[in-house]
């Protein structure tokens, strides 16, 4: 039953991996085609996702569940913006483009800005020097916060230099090891998928 899809994964994965080593222009053209096709698959998946969103809010609405008027807001904006966007385009200056700039963009940037508050409160509540490790983390963070901005050199002229060293030596070393480790993890997962060892994405049983 799953043999077919596994074969598809193997063929597409092995082909794309092999094409990295083949600079021939025709081979590269095939490579680009395969990649382009994934975009189409994604577009359809997004349609599927939006239907899922529709279903979950429609369910709340039908059941008149607590907070159903809010679900109505989601449903109306989903349908309205999709229709308007398909009809009039989504570029700058189109109605949807303007709605994006007045609605989505302030909402998204404010959600991000919330982080500044949350980070301050989390730093106060939970950043504790409980162990040698945690203390190291804390001290580095404080040196970094102060040393990288304008007040740093006013407090001590050596601070910017210290931050530069922290970034260039211990930070670089750790991030390099992580890059190698995560790289190996990525390669290993990808290999497992192509070889059909990792099948969780197809569902198991």
């Amino acid at each position: 039953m799953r043999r077919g899809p596994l074969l598809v994964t193997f063929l597409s994965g092995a082909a794309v991996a092999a094409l990295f080593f083949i600079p021939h222009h025709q081979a590269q053209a095939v490579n680009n085609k395969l990649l382009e096709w994934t975009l189409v698959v994604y577009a359809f998946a997004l349609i599927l996702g939006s239907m899922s969103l529709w279903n979950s809010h429609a369910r709340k609405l039908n059941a008149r569940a607590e907070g159903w008027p809010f679900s109505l807001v989601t449903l109306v904006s989903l349908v309205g913006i999709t229709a308007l966007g398909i009809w009039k385009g989504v570029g700058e200056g189109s109605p949807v483009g303007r709605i994006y700039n007045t609605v989505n963009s302030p909402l998204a940037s404010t959600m991000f800005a919330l982080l500044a508050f949350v980070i301050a409160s989390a730093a106060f509540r939970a950043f504790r020097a409980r162990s040698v490790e945690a203390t190291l983390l804390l001290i580095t963070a404080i040196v970094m916060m102060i040393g990288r901005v304008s007040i740093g050199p006013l407090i001590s002229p050596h601070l910017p230099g210290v931050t530069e060293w922290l970034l260039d030596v211990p930070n670089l070393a750790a991030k390099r090891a992580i890059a190698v480790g995560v790289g190996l993890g990525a390669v290993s997962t990808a290999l497992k998928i192509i070889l059909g060892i990792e099948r969780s994405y197809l569902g198991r049983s």
Partner: protein
Amino acid sequence: MLRSEAVDQTLDTRWFDPARLNILIGVLLFTAFLVVNIFRARAKSDLYVRPIAGLKALDEAIGRATEMGRSVLYVPGLSDMSEVGTFAAITILYRLAQRIAEMGCDLDVPCYDPVVMTVLDGAVRDAYSKVGRPDAFRPGCVHYVSAQQMAYVAAVNGTMLRDRPAANVYMGSFYAESLLLAETGATTGAIQIAGTDKVTQLPFFVCACDYTLLGEELFAASAYLGREPVQLATVIAQDWAKAVAAIAVTAALLLASLGHPTLASWLRAA
């Protein structure tokens, strides 16, 4: 397809790029490690992988949710199927969903990527069937929220505050949302367990969650939870590769310092 006349038309007609031989050898060597270890694992089932703190807590969390009659919220990261963290998230959820199906508490999985949603939905259904409780599966428990990061956060934060899940599990690739989610979750008093390969976000999970899997521990966890020989074998294959990498770098460094840069430049060529 449009092509400009003026453009350099020297099309490449080589069928192999010799400069990339090192990468090819790397890939083949790693594949060999993987295959060898899978055979080793099948031959003897007691390969050692160090235990990972935090995994036991998953059981605890499910137990608590069941007792309290509340749900378990599983956030599978904000990335797509091209990211390893997502695969770890899928495997871990598959295990977790089996436990949840057995214990009979509710599961909620809001998704960021529609393809991941499709995959997770299949995995959770299968998990419920596997433990013989397909009837307990609630359609819609795996659902799409938004492929826009902050819209997703806004919605999941809202869910946490309103539905008050007993346990929040964050596994996969996380970005700016990590702290917003974890902090909001902490204020609801839920048990929180996180794991991510995105190192930048680790300090925040560490500070707002009860248990955190650091970096690669996430990958190892997905292997460890299953205790399947094949999965453990891949962890060991990765260890071998790390050892080879460390030895190769040390050797290349020593040789280069002694005036023989061949190995170092072989590593470099791409």
